[in-house]
């Protein structure tokens, strides 16, 4: 058994008096695709923000590769939000190259000459990979919602993060476009050395993509109890038949609802 990539040890999260999440303990294996589901307000996004380093747990700790998580967002964890994931002032190519620019040029944040050309080639390959070839010069406002999320994926993947965090990335898309995105997401997960944690409110999406589904739920949800008890990890299901990274199964009949 490989050691877990992410380990969550008895994590609680409180905002003031309000307990949001309690008694969370779980570990996530490398190369897994974990979907997080649950009703609105059950702390799914809060959990993702803790993994991101944007929020710190009130109690307990989160380990990445056995080491405590950096307390702020960093390049080992990529993210795609439902909205505002791409930069409106950069072209498609500029958006994807940004990660390489930032890494290669700490002071001016921009590469030049041969290093820039190398970065651009890398970015173009990834842009083609997500199906945006030919749109390199466009600005995000000129792309549809689905294309913007494809761009966001390419942008997040160029820095080769250990973990990719997805916060309802396909929630705002039309069903037809969403099916295409699922296909892309599956392909990227199989082909890239990537562990994915995805928050979604769409159960069928969770089972279409993930190899493991976590359900967060407030077990005590009466008005008087809302403040005193947070959501817990109510269910932890492995998807059957097992999905294993790098071994794509031929698509059965359409699973997208």
């Amino acid at each position: 058994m490989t050691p877990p990539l992410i380990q969550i040890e008895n994590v609680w999260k409180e905002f003031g008096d309000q307990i949001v999440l309690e008694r969370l303990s779980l570990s996530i294996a490398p190369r897994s695709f974990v979907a997080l589901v649950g009703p609105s307000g059950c702390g799914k996004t809060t959990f993702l923000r803790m993994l991101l380093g944007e929020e710190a747990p009130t109690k307990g700790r989160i380990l990445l590769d056995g080491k405590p998580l950096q307390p702020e967002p960093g390049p080992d964890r990529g993210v795609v939000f439902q909205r505002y994931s791409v930069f409106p002032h950069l072209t498609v190519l500029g958006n994807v190259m940004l990660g390489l620019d930032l890494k290669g040029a700490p002071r001016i944040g921009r590469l030049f000459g041969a290093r820039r050309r190398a970065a651009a080639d890398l970015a173009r390959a990834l842009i083609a990979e997500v199906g945006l070839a030919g749109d390199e010069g466009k600005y995000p406002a000129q792309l549809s919602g689905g294309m913007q999320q494809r761009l966001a994926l390419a942008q997040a993947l160029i820095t080769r993060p250990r973990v990719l965090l997805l916060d309802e990335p396909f929630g705002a898309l039309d069903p037809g476009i969403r099916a295409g995105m699922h296909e892309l997401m599956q392909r990227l997960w199989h082909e890239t050395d990537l562990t994915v944690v995805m928050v979604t409110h769409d159960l069928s999406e969770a089972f279409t993509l993930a190899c493991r589904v976590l359900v967060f739920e407030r077990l005590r949800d009466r008005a008087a109890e809302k403040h005193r008890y947070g959501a817990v990890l109510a269910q932890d299901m492995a998807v059957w038949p097992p999905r294993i990274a790098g071994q794509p199964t031929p698509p059965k009949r359409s699973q997208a609802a």
Partner: protein
Amino acid sequence: MNANDKLLPSLATMADTVARMAFSADPRTGEVQLWVDTSASLFRLLTGLGIAAALTLLIGLVVGMLPVARAALAPVIDVVSMVPPLALLPILFITLGLGEVSKITLIVIGVMPVMVRDLAGRVLELPREQIVKAQTLGASSWQVAIRVVLPQALPRLITSFRLQLGPAWLFLIAAEAISAEAGLGYRIFLVRRFLAMDVIFPYVVWITFLAVVMSWGLERLRARAFPWVELGQ
């Protein structure tokens, strides 16, 4: 038209005056009056606005990005923006003298609070997701400032610069009216004593023309340099 009208000059008189002021050198000094006035005024106006824009960029980004700086500076800026700049004019003349410095300072003080608040507001408007996203791509705070915040703040700074052209002209002419040796406002208030409407009218038209051209040029510059702004709307 009444040829004896002492207040409203005829078009012919105005044309003569324009020819004298704008196209012929003054026999005493050898200089073209309108050109001397225009260059003196534009120098003050653009220096003042330029300094204001540079300071705005610095202060606006710091106030917008750093909560600590915002807590410290925002109330100060709010109070300073309430001081009527023209009431400060005598103080500026007394402390900084009657030369260029006091006039340029008046323009800077007059337009800067509005510009700083506008720019800081724009920076605060940027979605939190963008900043987090940049951090996950490995950006340091400095890199967030120059690659994410600055390029999205610049077009707003240009717009705010353009909208402050009006107030800037106001402060310039007010300062020149009190004390100067050349300048468009100075000339208007000098010849006012002789009811020389044949000079005042063309000068007002000329000032308006300059302001319109500057405004138009800035708008073109913004559209050219930041094409993505229009797309997003």
